[in-house]
């Protein structure tokens, strides 16, 4: 998920540490097992790096594209299942924000919001008689759409602020 250059640096640094640590524990095979055990769980450490470094641009584009695709399918005019897909879209944004940072969550949320609004504008223009709605209904739709932005942004912010890493 990190960019190539950052990943290469991290791998090289960790490899160097493990080699030196293994030597300090008396040798290659047994020493390396102990060095790896002392290093700590890989996924927890990887998460710490992900919190420091933003994902590469391809990851931003991928998450924005997935959010936009879900947003397209979540439009109310598509029927009853659209509500389920909207809920899934919200969960997806929360996941993106917590796992990959508030900026990625925000970018994905903006992609979803823009998609839903453009989709609505297009339908209203191209098929003016197709979409039946009340003013209240349209207002609720817009509010629900705009709510995706804090949904994509705040979980990542809360995680940064309150989740403390245990170093000992």
């Amino acid at each position: 998920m990190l960019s190539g250059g950052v990943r290469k640096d991290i791998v090289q640094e960790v490899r160097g540490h493990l080699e030196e640590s293994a030597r300090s524990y008396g040798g290659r095979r047994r020493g390396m097992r102990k060095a790896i055990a002392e290093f700590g769980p890989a996924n927890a450490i990887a998460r710490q790096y992900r919190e420091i470094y933003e994902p590469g641009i391809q990851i931003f584009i991928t998450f924005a594209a997935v959010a936009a695709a879900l947003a397209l399918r979540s439009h109310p005019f598509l029927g009853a299942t659209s509500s389920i897909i909207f809920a899934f879209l919200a969960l997806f944004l929360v996941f993106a924000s917590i796992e990959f940072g508030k900026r990625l969550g925000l970018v994905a949320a903006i992609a979803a919001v823009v998609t839903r609004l453009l989709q609505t504008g297009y339908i209203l223009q191209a098929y003016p008689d197709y979409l039946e709605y009340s003013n209240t209904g349209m207002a609720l739709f817009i509010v629900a759409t705009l709510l995706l932005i804090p949904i994509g942004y705040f979980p990542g912010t809360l995680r940064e602020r309150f989740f403390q890493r245990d170093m000992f």
Partner: protein
Amino acid sequence: MAREGWSREMKKGSVQLCILSLLGEDRKYGFQIIKELKERSDGYLVLKDGTLYPALHRMEKKGLIKSEWIVENDKPRRYYSITTEGRAALDEGKAEWLNMSSSVRNVLGVTD
């Protein structure tokens, strides 16, 4: 809170200061920092090895330290050194730590 809990909380607050202090003396690489922290604290500050490196990267992003790759015996090592901002932060941190330590000692009624 159990003793282990107290220990963890107190260590969290001081480890960044200790890392800056070590790097204030000379540039060092990660394994060296872990070893010196343990030795110079008489075994009190023992970090989980893997957690030091993200902490160093975080400090570098904040501009407190900088890094460079140096090849020694055909092996590349990432050395960290303190920046001007890091030195200023270290001085402030030391002053604050001494202040806090003295105040807490007074409250706890602890004498040397």
